């Protein structure tokens, strides 16, 4: 089941600077909150997000407890040629989601 939403612009020509948007389901539990019985809820956050293009890291982020649930991360990329973008989110409790998307670039 799809856990992440990824948006890549269409009709891209070589040399364009494009915005890539990502959104993923994750509670981003801070570890500071307590439940209704006063017991502390353990921290459970995403720790790392990276995007690779042709085995090269093009975007990378470290996530911290201050980031809200369901993180929305967008970034810009200069599109020189088409290829496959691989998106990887990693987090606590062995959380790992990998998605791939094709980037089509007209020359």
């Amino acid at each position, binding site marked *: *089941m*799809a*856990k992440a*939403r990824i*948006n890549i612009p269409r009709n891209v020509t070589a040399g364009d600077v494009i915005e890539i*948007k990502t*959104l*993923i*389901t994750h*509670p*981003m539990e801070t570890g500071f909150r307590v439940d209704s019985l006063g017991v502390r809820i353990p921290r459970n956050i995403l720790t790392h997000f990276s995007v690779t293009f042709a085995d090269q890291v093009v975007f990378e982020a470290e996530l911290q407890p201050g980031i*809200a*649930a*369901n993180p*929305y991360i967008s970034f810009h990329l200069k599109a020189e040629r088409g290829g496959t973008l691989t998106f990887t989110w990693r987090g606590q409790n062995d959380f790992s989601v990998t998605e791939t998307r094709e980037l089509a670039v007209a020359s």
Partner: protein
Amino acid sequence: MRPSIVASVVLALLVCAGGCDRPGASINVQRTLTEVQSGYAYQAPETQSLQDDDFGNPGLLWVDKGIALWEVHCASCHEGLDHMTDVATRYPRFDPALNRVINLTQRIDHCRTEHVGLPAVDYESEELLALTVALTHLADGQPYAVDISGNNAAAFERGRAYYYTRRGQMNLACHHCHEVNAGKKLRGETLSQGHSNGYPTYRLQWQTLGSLQRRLRFCNAAMRAEPFAYGAQAYVDLELFLAWRADDLALESPAVRR
């Protein structure tokens, strides 16, 4: 009064009884609000733009999930999602098999357990929320079209009575905050008219998507009344009243609220 005028008035009444623009519209129930305003209007510009963002609205994560679940469990019986674009506008409604008024979530749950044979899940579970919001999102932009006559009339009257009855230690009725004082400040919050057209809603306070009943439980707790359990008939009746009360407001689920 001249006979011709009397005749035309009678004719107009008959025409209306035969079916005004929406079912139940011919029933004479007094509206308290003269002008309806969606909860959207009470949000900060940042929150509004998050709701309007057709990629970044976090509620759409659940819509995606709901559509994926629908393809797996529901698509074999139902014709297709494009045939279900107005389903959400008609709930809550009377269900002959269950012999009571149920809301969309209960309808989906009934379908899941009776026809698909899936195990029952909690009312506020991810699965039911996802399916509910997927169907409600299909009706985006349409107003509610609930029927408050016939089998639905008793539930509607109970819902209306609930709305105007004082309760809890604060001794407030829904009416006092959301009609008499709508638009005024309650500490840091602006009181909205309390319409249900954005539910299921992504609330920033919850950091997740939640049902209308979750919001109603929060309302009850805030005025120090004991909340009902999820799926309680009192809430379903109230939902029917709220749907009628929203008048011509367009559905906008998943809405984003603070």
